[in-house]
């Protein structure tokens, strides 16, 4: 089974040289720590940064320089700053090659829910709806089940949707899956996790073809 860092490391393998990448809050943010050697990607933060760098050294933090998670950050040489309209032009206009975000639920047709639990939690969608509605390449980082052990990979989302039929790939603590016309297609399983365990933890349709290799991180 993978922990959060393992999920981030596996997603980092999706990165390709020269890509512009938007990372959501939580596990997705960790992906920036595991960019494979020899490739260069540029991270976008939707509050107005291209070329987001590491956190500042203590004493060098600047309140004007934050990321979309409101954390203090730095800008790398070659980076740029822009306003929110321009930022979402990059996103909506499909100038960003990869979007990684978290989810509460994903359905086997690629629907995603991650912004609201009616009556309990209403924080808002932030930029997530714009991101999922426009990007071609959307990878979701999430736990396969909730704390009670219920599957978060469903036939149909129960929570209010963030986007419709938009997710391309899901990386969980148990598996890597693509969204295909017939549901989740199992590509890789986490170390020590059997295909049967993944089947048991997946409520949505799961296609398993041939031998399923272990995730290598």
């Amino acid at each position: 089974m993978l922990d959060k860092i393992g999920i981030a490391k596996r997603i980092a393998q999706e990165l390709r040289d020269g890509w512009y990448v938007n990372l959501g809050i939580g596990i997705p943010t960790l992906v920036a720590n595991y960019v494979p050697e020899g490739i260069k990607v540029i991270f976008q933060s939707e509050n107005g940064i291209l070329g987001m760098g590491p956190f500042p050294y203590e004493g060098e933090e600047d309140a004007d320089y934050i990321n979309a998670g409101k954390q203090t950050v730095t800008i790398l040489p070659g980076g740029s700053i822009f306003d929110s309209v321009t930022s979402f032009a990059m996103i909506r206009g499909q100038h960003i090659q990869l979007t990684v975000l978290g989810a509460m639920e994903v359905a086997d047709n690629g629907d995603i829910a991650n912004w609201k639990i009616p009556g309990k939690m209403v924080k808002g969608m932030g930029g997530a709806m714009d991101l999922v509605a426009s990007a071609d390449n959307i990878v979701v980082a999430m736990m396969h089940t909730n704390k009670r052990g219920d599957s978060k990979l469903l036939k149909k989302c129960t929570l209010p949707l963030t986007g419709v039929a938009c997710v391309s790939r899901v990386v969980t603590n148990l598996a890597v899956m693509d969204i295909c016309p017939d549901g989740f297609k199992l590509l890789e399983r986490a170390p020590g996790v059997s295909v049967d365990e993944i089947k048991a933890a997946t409520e949505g349709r799961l296609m398993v073809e041939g031998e399923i290799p272990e995730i290598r991180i």
Partner: protein
Amino acid sequence: MNKLVANATAAITGIEDNMTLMLGGFGLCGIPENCITALVEAGVTGLTCISNNAGVDDFGLGLLLQKKQIRKMVSSYVGENDEFERQMLTGELEVDLIPQGSLAARCYAGGAGIPAFYTPAGYGTEVAAGKEVREFNGKPHILEEALAADFAIVKAWKGDRFGNLIYNGPARNFNPAMAMAGKITIAEVEEIVEPGELDPNFIHTPGVFVQRIFQGSNYEKRIEQRTVRQRES
């Protein structure tokens, strides 16, 4: 031409109960701190506030929420604020949550004379309820209307008495789009400079969009998530 006013109190003259305001900022970054304080002191109520976020409990728009001066919030993300959540769940506060890119574009559209536009964001979700859907290139889009405000209040780094503004870092965020959209736009800046000091090539908000400007004071510039790394020894 002189758009310079003395301070925040003078700048917010004319803001009355039940008006609609746009307020720049992302989280607590790039918010008009001085004008928010002045609005608390002025005690105007029934406000509709269009702002990406709603501050935190004791800072930013949270200060207006504490005093129950806001009737409605139009935002994209409102976590990090318990009083906000309480007022929303009890129904005291009306909340319109809209996707962040649509929020920015709706402000821009309001200032740019574009009454509405189509966007894919929110199609198939609660956000699309009651909105016209139209396909372009085989993909469904929803019609979003421009936002307007009686006053837009923005925060910039430097400005001059013509109203030209430049921002610092990602504190720019929603400020330029909102500056365009106010019937009256108030800019508070950290430093007023003489006309000509700002290079015309690097003006972010041209002065035409700004009606009042003043140099703010005592900026707290609070950081929500102070995150640092250790120096390698």
